[in-house]
Structure formats: structure tokens, C-alpha cells
């Protein structure tokens, strides 16, 4: 009996302590919904680094009106339905005032219903689905990454400038790759460039000669790849293996030092779009590069920048309404956020565009001699 009583008293005290702790917070709580396990783990870790660095920086600079920013991190294991539960957890239990990242397009969409209902801002780092692009922006739904259509336009313009007539599109079978390929196809159709092949791959594929020989047979002059590391590196290796002489153009998803590390010589000559102007650092990119260099002694990649920016624009929006914790005010402030330079580019939000980035945010980067060289 005695042990029983002891256990009960411990439980009671624990609950009591937890209760006090959960009430006593005078801080800005951001929920960070991110996947560091599962299919999106490879991207999730980088985004998370960016977010954590940004929060660190803000707090070092005195937080918002002297109050600390706290990031409450949850891993949704790349399963959108888990993301729904965790979004509820963050909002109800942790009382966050914004949800950042959301990890994947599917998860962003899944969480949308919860955030709309409870009027909490969600700032995503993933582009909207191609299926949802024609719909108006949901009220509480923002993103730091340029829409795939913007990226597709940048790639398309470059391909056009190469004078290529026959291209192949190879894309990741996930949401990002699929919707990118849709925009890319549309662009080429309008531009009068023939798409000889449009095919997809699974993230775990490690040999894509089966697709590439089809492209080779159809006399493709350029291969446009929509996807994220590592499989684009496999494509580069396979192109080299097959001895194909084609232009290799990639979407922003390729923007990672890993590409060169994995593909080695095969990465030579790859061109990809990037929001980060590697090599010629723009002033708005400096804080991230400095912070990252200091902590990890490396260059940050595109995804780190996305994570960084989603903290930065949220904090900026809060600052612009005088540090209010009212989520509707934050939303309105975010919607009117313009002329704000993030690492990615200049955000010009408005009620019809909750992102506000255009092709000017993107640069073309070419790999020459194992180094990034910015083309424009």
C-alpha cells in the first residue's frame, strides 16, 4: 500500500509541476513541425538547422521586445496524418502562435485545416501543390519558398537560351517533383520546345539507366531534373556512365553541396537554379552564411535558407505589429509584409500572394571544377 501511495503522490506532484510550467510562459512560442525521420529526413535536418540558427540569432539580439523566442520542435516522421495530430498538439498543448516549416507539401496541406480552424499562422518551406495553385491562398497559409512555377520559368528561360529543341524531364515521384514537372511541361509547351520524355523516379532508386536510355533513344539534348538529393546525383553518374552528351539542368532542390560530393566528376557542368547566390554573396544572405559558418564551418544549403527565412519573416511580421501575440494580427501583418529581404529574396506578400517571390529571387548556378559558379 505504501508504494502505491508513493506512486500516487509522485504522479500528483509531477502533474502539478507540469501544470505550473505550462502556464508560466512569457515568450513567443513557435511550433516547428519538421521531419527528421522518414522520406523527408534528408531535407528536414537542413531546414531544422536553419530554423534553430535563426531563433538563436533573434534571441541573441534580444528577442522580440526583450521576450525570448522559443521553438518547440516536433518530428512528424514524414507522415502527414501525424503532422495533423502534432499541429493540434502544438496549438492546444504548447499554445504556439505560429507553426513553421511543415516539412512537406502534403503535410502543409494536411495541417492547413487545423491552422485555418484555430487561426494560427503556418509558414511553410515547401511549394504549393500544382493542384492547388489556381485556388486562392488560404488565409493563414504562407510560404518562404518560391512556387514551383517560378522555378520552372527560370529553368525554362535558361533552356530556351541554350537553344535546345528536345528536352527530357525526369522528376522525383514526390509532390515537389511531380508538380514541378507539370509546370515545366506547361512552360516548354508554350515555348515550343519538345518534351521527348517525362518520367519519374523513386527516392530510393540508385540506377536510372532505364529512363536515360529512353531519353538517349529519343535524341534528347537536355535533361531537366526536378528532385532533391541524392537521386539527381545518381542521374548525373548514369549520364556519364552511358556516355551521353546532354545539358543537365536541375531545379532548386539540387542546391546542396552533397551533389558534388556524391556525383564527383559526373557533377561537372550541371546547372541548377538556386535562391542562394553561391560565390557572390548578396548582402541579405550574409547573416545566414556567417551564422552557419560559425556553427558548422560549412556553407549552408538551400533548405537551411528556407528554414531560416520562415523564422525571419514571422518575427518581422510580429515586430511590425508591435510584438503582439494575437494570431490574427500576426496573419494580417504577414499578409502585408513587403519590401522585406530574406535570404531567399525579396518577399512582397499581398492578399493574392502569400509568398511574393519571383524569378528575381533565383539565380543560376553551374558546377565548374567542383565549385559553384553563379551564372547571372
Amino acid at each position, binding site marked *: 500500500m505504501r508504494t502505491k501511495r508513493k506512486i500516487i503522490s509522485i504522479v500528483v506532484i509531477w502533474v502539478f509541476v507540469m501544470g505550473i510550467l505550462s502556464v508560466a510562459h512569457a515568450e513567443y512560442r513557435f511550433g516547428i513541425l519538421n521531419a*527528421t*525521420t*522518414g*522520406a523527408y*529526413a*534528408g531535407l*528536414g*535536418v537542413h531546414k531544422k538547422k536553419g530554423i534553430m540558427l535563426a531563433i538563436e540569432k533573434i534571441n541573441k539580439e534580444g528577442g522580440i521586445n526583450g521576450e525570448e523566442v522559443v521553438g518547440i520542435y516536433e518530428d512528424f516522421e514524414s507522415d502527414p496524418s501525424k503532422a495533423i495530430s502534432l499541429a493540434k498538439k502544438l496549438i492546444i498543448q504548447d499554445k504556439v502562435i505560429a507553426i513553421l516549416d511543415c516539412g512537406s507539401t502534403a503535410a502543409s496541406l494536411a495541417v492547413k485545416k487545423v491552422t485555418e480552424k484555430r487561426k494560427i499562422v503556418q509558414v511553410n518551406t515547401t511549394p504549393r501543390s500544382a493542384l492547388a495553385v489556381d485556388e486562392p491562398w488560404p488565409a493563414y497559409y504562407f510560404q518562404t519558398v518560391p512556387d514551383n512555377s517560378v522555378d520552372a520559368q527560370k529553368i525554362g528561360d535558361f533552356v530556351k537560351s541554350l537553344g535546345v529543341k528536345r528536352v527530357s524531364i525526369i522528376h522525383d*515521384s514526390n509532390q515537389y517533383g511531380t508538380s514541378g514537372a507539370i509546370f515545366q511541361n506547361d512552360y516548354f509547351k508554350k515555348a515550343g520546345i519538345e518534351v521527348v520524355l517525362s*518520367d*519519374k*523516379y*523513386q*527516392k*530510393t532508386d*540508385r*540506377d536510372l*539507366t*532505364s*529512363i536515360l*536510355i*529512353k531519353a538517349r*533513344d529519343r535524341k534528347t539534348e537536355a535533361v531537366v531534373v526536378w528532385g532533391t*538529393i*541524392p537521386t539527381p*546525383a545518381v542521374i548525373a553518374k548514369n549520364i*556519364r*556512365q*552511358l*556516355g551521353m552528351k546532354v545539358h543537365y539542368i536541375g531545379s532548386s532542390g539540387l542546391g*546542396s553541396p*552533397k551533389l558534388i*560530393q*556524391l556525383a*564527383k566528376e559526373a557533377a561537372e557542368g550541371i546547372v541548377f537554379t538556386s535562391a542562394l547566390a553561391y560565390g557572390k554573396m548578396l548582402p541579405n544572405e550574409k547573416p545566414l552564411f556567417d551564422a552557419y559558418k560559425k556553427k558548422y564551418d560549412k556553407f549552408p544549403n538551400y533548405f537551411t535558407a528556407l528554414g531560416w527565412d520562415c523564422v525571419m519573416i514571422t518575427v518581422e511580421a510580429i515586430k511590425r505589429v508591435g510584438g503582439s501575440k494575437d494570431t490574427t494580427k500576426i496573419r494580417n501583418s504577414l499578409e502585408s509584409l513587403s519590401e522585406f529581404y530574406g535570404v531567399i529574396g525579396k518577399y512582397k506578400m499581398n492578399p493574392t500572394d502569400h509568398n511574393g517571390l519571383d524569378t528575381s529571387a533565383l539565380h543560376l548556378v553551374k558546377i565548374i571544377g567542383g565549385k559553384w559558379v553563379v551564372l547571372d
Partner: protein
Amino acid sequence: MSFSNVLQILVGGLTMGSVYALVALGFHIIYNGTRAINFAQGEQVVLGGVIALSCMSTLKLPLPLAFFLTLIIGGVIGYFYERLAIRPNLETSELSIIISSIAVAIILQNSIAVIWEKDPMYFPPFTKGGSLEFMGAYMLRQSLWIMGITAASVVALDRFFHQTLLGKAILASANNSEAARLVGISPFRMVSCSFILSGCLGAIAGSIVAPLTFAGGPLGTMIAIKGFAGGILGGLSSSRGVVLGALLLGILEFFIATFISEGYRDAIAIFILLIALMLKPEGLFAQE
């Protein structure tokens, strides 16, 4: 479709098939020793890759030495895996062994991600140089290594199980453990042996396929499933069967990806596998 393309598909299919085959051989060994399925096999392969990489990059060992060290570490991990996770369940049921192996797979997968990194890592090929050309088809030098070592493993395992006393003892103790004890075979030791063997095999597989698949990364589940499918297709009880099944699966995948649909590749390959199983429930290449 030209002949060279068909050849190219065969090369790709055989290479990937060999990767699956090495995993399937691991399944085969454990199946021979315990009649259970070791779902951690895929992760053991991934682990082999990253360990070999660490041996080379951190310890600065030359490749053959790194390969050898990885083999030993793989065996040791196999041993501890068996002692800690499998042995307590040996006498209950196959199902609890399977669940144990799933738990170990989860632990290994995430531990690899924590200890190394979540992204795949570059692993240098065994021999330098561009791809080899043969009648219009191009083949990576590493593919030859993979196929060669797979073939060697099959022959070695086949001989081990059918010509050495220890191999026969493993088969015997899985078949009838009481009778095995009565002739002096310790069933526990036999299970240990099979796990050490499959650990070694995982390590070999991991280090030879890593130049192709990269080291680390979220590959374990996929190759475990493919290896299992290949093994079942061929018939789990014979080493030749599992390898043929896995190779067939690899080639099938490449043909489907090229001629039908990359998206439905897995689905169609599995569908064909199911039909094959309906026609020959014990596997296509099973003996008897």
C-alpha cells in the same frame, strides 16, 4: 528498342538484382537457421556501407583492409544482435523473432542516421576508371565487382550448407533442435552462427554496393523488401533459388521501368511475383 538497349537494361537489372540477391542471401541464412525472417537485414547492409566508409575515411585504412574489418564488425554485430534480441525469443515463436528483428531494424536505421548523417554519403568505387562498353551497353566497373562477389557468395554458401558439417548442423538444428542436441549440436550456437554469417554477409553486401547506392541514407527498408521479395520468388530454402529470384526481380524491374511505367514499376513487379507464387507456391527455383 535496339539490342544495345536491351543489353543495357540487363546490365542495370543484373546489378540491382545482385544487390537484392546479397540481401536475399542474408534472409536465406537466417531462414535456414531459425525458420524466421530477419527484417533487419536491409539495415545491416546499410550499416556495412557506413562502417566500411568510416574505416576508410576516419581510420584511413586501405580498401581491402577496410573491407576485412567491416566483415569482422558485421559478424560481431550479428552476434550481439542474436544474443540480445533474438535468443530470448528463440523458444517462443517465429513471430516474436520477426517483431524483434523489426525493432532492431528501427533502432539500427535511426542509429545510423544519428551516428553518421541522414543524407547518403559518397563511397569511392573499388577500381577507378570510366564505364566499360560492350556492344553498345555501358557498365560500371563496380557492377562487375558486385556481380562477382555475389556469385562467389552463392557458391560459398551453397558449399557451406551442403558440404561442411557445420552447415549441415545449422540446417539440422533448425529442423529438429532436440535431435540436434542429442548428437552434440548446440542449437543456440547454430543460431548464433547463422546470425554471425548473415551479419558478415550484410557487411560484405554493404561495402560492395555502397559505391553504387551511396553509403547510409534511407535505403534499408527498400532493399530489405526487395531482397525478401526476390528470395520468396526464388524459394527461401535454397541459396541458388534466392539469388536467381532476386536477379529475376531486378531484371523485371528494369524492363518494367523502361517499357511500361516507372511509377507502377514496383506494383507490376510485385504483381508478377504474386502470380508466380500462385503457380508455384514454394518459389520458382525451390528444389523438389
